[in-house]
Every structure is written in C-alpha cells, then in structure tokens.
C-alpha cells in the first residue's frame, strides 16, 4: 500500500504548529480556551472545503465556487422565514429547528441547481458555479436589503455555534461527524465508488453504464447541503448573517482541498485529509495572529504551504524517501 503522503505531512505539520505555538506563546496557544477557540473557527470553512473536494472528485474540471455565497443565501433566506414564523425568545427550539432545516433545504436546492446546470446542460463547472455564486449573492442582497440580518441567539442555536461538550465545541463535533459520515459514504456505498470512477475516467464511466447526470447532481447537491450547514454554523457563531460574509473563503476552501491532496483532475480525495488541512490552516493563521505578524505574512505563508504540498504531490517525495529503505517494507498485497 502506498502511503498517503498528504495525510502524513498534514499530521506532522499540525503537531509542529501546535508545538511552535506553545513555544512562542509560553503555552497560551495550547490553553484549552485557545484550542476551543480555534476549533470553533474550523467548521464553516472546513464544510465548504469538503464541498469543493466532492466537486473536484467528480472530475471534468469539477469545482464549486458558489459555496460561501450559498451559505450566506441559506442563512439569510432561512432567517427571514424563521423570524416570520416564530419568536426567537418565546419558542427558541422551534425557531432553531426551522432555521436549521431552512438552511439545509435552501443549500440543498441551490446545490441541485448547480448539479443540473453542470450535468444536464454540460456547462463547465467553473463557469456554472461562478454564475450561481453571483446569483446566490444577489438573492441574499435582495432578500436582506443589503443589510446584515439579525438571527438572534436563542439557546439551542447559540449552543450550536458556541457551546462545548466534554471540552469540544459542538460545531466542531458536528463537522467531524459529517466528515466521518461522508467518508463512509464515499468508501462504502456504490455512489462513492461511482463518483471516484467517473472522476478518474468519465468516458469509461459512460461506457460502463453509469448514470452520470445523477452522480454529478448528487455530488453538487451534497456540496450545497454542506454549504447550508455552514450557513447554520455562521449564524450560530455570529448572531447575524450578511450577504458579503467570508468573501475570502472562496479561495481558501480551494486551497484546503488542494493541500489535502484532492486531485483537481478528479477521481481522488479523502475527507480526513480535508479536515486535517482545514485544521492546519487554522493553526497557521491563529499562530501568526498570536505572534502579531501582519496578515499579509499569512497570505505569504499560505502560498508557500500550497506550493510545498504541490511539490510533495508532484514529486511523490514521501514515497521517494521511503524507497531508500526498501527492506523495511513488509510484503503486502497491493490495494
């Protein structure tokens, strides 16, 4: 079995960054409060990155640029519906439930729209999702009049974004649970296998009788659903939602996916790597904020990191190094 170079590098990087953070901050970086604080920041961008990963796996230049726009639109639309139906202080549970369901439904529908445009009308994903990104942003602007919409902080919703269970933020637990579920779907279900095979070789998939339209639509629908869930978490954390929140997430989500070793040509990507890549990026930005460096340095660091990961993937560095010690390799059937 070939080692997953990205997984290894990501694990080592997280440990190194944590250690480095502990050193430069005299331990404050490793305080439970900061670890929680960093963990609450990961889910929204992490969910969007998983969405990008799924789209990339589908191959044929797959990408989802509409993630954050979809998340904002879901938050705004579901917020308006929930506010009009229930009073957040009188019926907090119902309010939260309506809002959360609303976000997921809007996100899912938007994802299905992406999928249909891409699979039925054969529009290049980058163009299709660029178009829908603008559409979703526009809808959010119109619905909210361009202002931020106050969702409020009814108890269950507030807990979702800021609460902790056994010292772990609830939003982070949800993120990891979704990650595990998706990893299982990709690995164990026929859909998962067909998605990867379609991405690896679309032509062969067609001749094998795969229903491409359904696979692509499902993939973008899941990506949309994840964006909707990101919308819930954003609202839960910030009390307010706004159409222009997180405009920088668009590229960061792609950066995470590439760092995670997702193959942009399609056919390969692991959820666990995406989760770890999101964590590494968060550790790096928080570390730089701790040191008090300019945020332009962070962009630089991200760029260098990305190039390093591309080099690791391109030249297969980890396996090359390992090849120097062939005697250590146990005989084992190829996967």
């Amino acid at each position: 079995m070939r080692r997953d170079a990205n997984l290894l590098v990501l694990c080592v990087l997280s440990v190194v960054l944590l250690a480095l953070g502990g050193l430069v901050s005299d331990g404050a970086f490793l305080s439970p409060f900061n670890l929680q604080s960093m963990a609450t920041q990961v889910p929204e961008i992490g969910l969007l990155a998983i969405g990008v990963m799924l789209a990339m796996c589908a191959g044929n230049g797959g990408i989802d640029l509409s993630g954050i726009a979809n998340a904002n639109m879901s938050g705004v639309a579901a917020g308006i519906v929930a506010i009009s139906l229930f009073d957040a202080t009188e019926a907090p549970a119902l309010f939260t439930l309506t809002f959360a369901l609303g976000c997921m439904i809007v996100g899912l529908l938007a994802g299905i729209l992406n999928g249909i445009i891409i699979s039925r009308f054969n529009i290049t994903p980058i163009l299709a999702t660029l178009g829908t990104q603008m559409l979703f942003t526009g809808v959010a602007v119109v619905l909210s009049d361009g202002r931020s919409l106050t969702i409020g902080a009814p108890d269950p919703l507030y807990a979702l974004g800021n609460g902790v269970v056994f010292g772990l933020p609830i939003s982070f637990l949800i993120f990891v649970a979704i990650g595990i579920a998706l990893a299982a779907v990709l690995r164990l279900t026929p859909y998962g296998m067909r998605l990867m095979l379609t991405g690896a070789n679309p032509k062969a998939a067609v001749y094998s009788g795969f229903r491409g339209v359904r696979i692509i639509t499902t993939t973008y629908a899941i990506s949309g659903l994840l964006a909707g869930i990101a919308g819930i978490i954003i609202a839960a954390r910030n009390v307010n939602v706004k159409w222009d929140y997180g405009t920088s997430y668009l590229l960061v989500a792609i950066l995470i996916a590439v760092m995670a070793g997702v193959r942009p040509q399609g056919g390969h990507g692991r959820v666990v790597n995406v989760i770890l890549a999101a964590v590494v990026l968060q550790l790096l930005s928080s570390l730089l904020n701790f040191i008090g460096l300019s945020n332009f340095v962070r962009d630089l660091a991200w760029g260098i990191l990305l190039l390093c990961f591309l080099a690791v993937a391109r030249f297969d560095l980890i396996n090359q190094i390992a090849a120097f010690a062939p005697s250590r390799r146990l005989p084992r059937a190829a996967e």
Partner: protein
Amino acid sequence: MTTRHHALTTGLKAALLTTVMTVAGSAAWAQDGKTITTVVKISGIPWFDRMETGVDLYAEEHPEMTISQVGPATADSAQQLQIVQDLIARGTDALAVVPMDPGVLEGLLKRAIDRGTIVVTHEADNQVNTMANIEAFDNAEYGTALNERLAECMGQEGKWTTFVGSLGSRTHMQWVGAGEENAAKYPGMELVDPNNESFDDANGTYETAKEILRKHPDIKGFQTSAGNDVLGVGRAIEEAGLTGKVCLVGTGLPNPSAAYLDSGAITAIGFWDPQKAGMAMNEVARILLEGGELTDGMDLGVEGYESVSVTQGAGDGKLVVGNGMVIVDKDTYAERLF
C-alpha cells in the same frame, strides 16, 4: 514497515508534546503590563496607516503597556472576525475595534465582554456589544459645518445639490440632511436634484456631475459625502472650466484631493483624523482597563477629544462623541497631509 513507521511518528509526537508541556508549565503568557490591540477594517490602506501612526504614538506615550495595531489583508468581515477571536483567545486585555461590519462581530464581542476583555469600538454607533463606541464628531454638526462652508463660498445664494455614497448609508444621509436644514436658513439657496448616489466611485461621480452641470448650467454648489466624491465632482468642474465659479465642499482626504484643492476645483474638504481617533480609542481602553469611568465632558488628552460628550449607546455601553471634525481648504490642508 507501517508499524515501525508508526512507532517513529508516535515517538516524534510524544517528544514534541513533552517539550511543549514543559514550556507551557514553566511560564505564563504576557506577564508584563496590559495589552491593548487595535483591530482595523483592513490593513495597508492610507486611512488605517494613518490610524497606525496614532496607535504607535500612543504606544510611545505608554511604554508600560503593549500596544499595537492589526487588521486583515482583505476587506472581509470573516477575516476580521478571526483576528478578533484569536486575540481574545490569546488573552489580550483590551480590544479597540473598527468593525468592518458591526453585525457580524456582535456575537463574538459579547463573548469577549463576558470573558472580561475590554471592548472599545469606533465608527459603529449601532454596535450593541461594546463598552464604549467612539465617534469623531456629531454627524449633524458635521453636515451643518460642511454646508456652512459651502454657503459661505456660494455667497448664500444659488442652486446646489448633494451626493451620498448610497441612500442606505446612514451617516451620509445624516450629513446631507443636516446640510439641507442649514441651507434652509438662506432663502437664496435652492436645492436641486438632491441625494445623487455615487457609490464612492470617482468615475461614476464624474459622469453624474457632468450631467448635473449640463442640466443646471447655473448651479453654484456641490456638497458630497463619500471619500472619492470630491475627486469625481472636482474633475468635472475643472474640465468644464468652472473652477472658482462653482463651489465644492465634501468629505475627502488631503493627499488625493491636494491637486484639486490647489487648483481651486475643490473649495474645502472635511474629514476626521484617524490618527487622533486611534489615540482616543486607546485612551478610552486604558481608562476602562484601569477601572475608570467615562464622564460627560471629560478630556481624553487627544486633539479634538478635549471635551467629549458621553451618552448611552445602542447597548449597555457608552457613546463617546468628540469634536474631531477637520475642515481644510487650499491654505490649510498641508498641515494635515495624509
């Protein structure tokens, strides 16, 4: 192979963790003096670079504290949110924030206050979760002052019009509203086609201003609001050869406006000095850190904030309003070039 390899990484991890734990145990973070960190909307633009000079000045005056300014590299409220969150986690004692979007920061600032962090804001008079919001001046007074300068230039008569960034921009509407009220004092002044939207775009404003000059050849004055409006209108006036015949007073910054001020296409510009605002924010943060009270009429020791008005803000916090408005013309702008 895999097992040995795992043993290796596990060993490495364990070693690193041990090092970290030892270090963590032996020292505490920031034991010397309190920290005040200013978080701006975006770093690297002239406005907030100017604010940083004020923060640096304040840091020099207060060497016992750790005072600095940070801001996101991109204009995105999510990025500012992350910085604030990391600063809170780091244990910063006081935050002076210029919110990109007050709404987005509400939840986080509430948690910061609950945790005991001092929170001071600027340019966010609708921020609920802040202990004090600092405004450089009263918006109505500023609008009145701009209009008074315009009326003086126009000889208190003739047609005039107004520009706002957008109709949804609350402060801009307050400024032109106060301007209209002031102009009502002078029966000779006639407001035509008011509240043109500029979207802070100098080119768009230039086009609109040309149209207005064509439609009203006898127009005498413009009062503008967004930072780039004076540049667009100034260019239109200059190209129409009306320099000195048409008056233009609006919000603008000295450096970009310098050429038009010199030529006379811009009569005067109004603004507040972010340097002073940065110092005032830090001073209020220091007062609150030391458990002091903010009282009406107090002196913050910063020019333009010698006698601030303190009233109840949008939430539990106070609204601190200074008198930091600056209106400069051709002869005086060089004193505040930034």
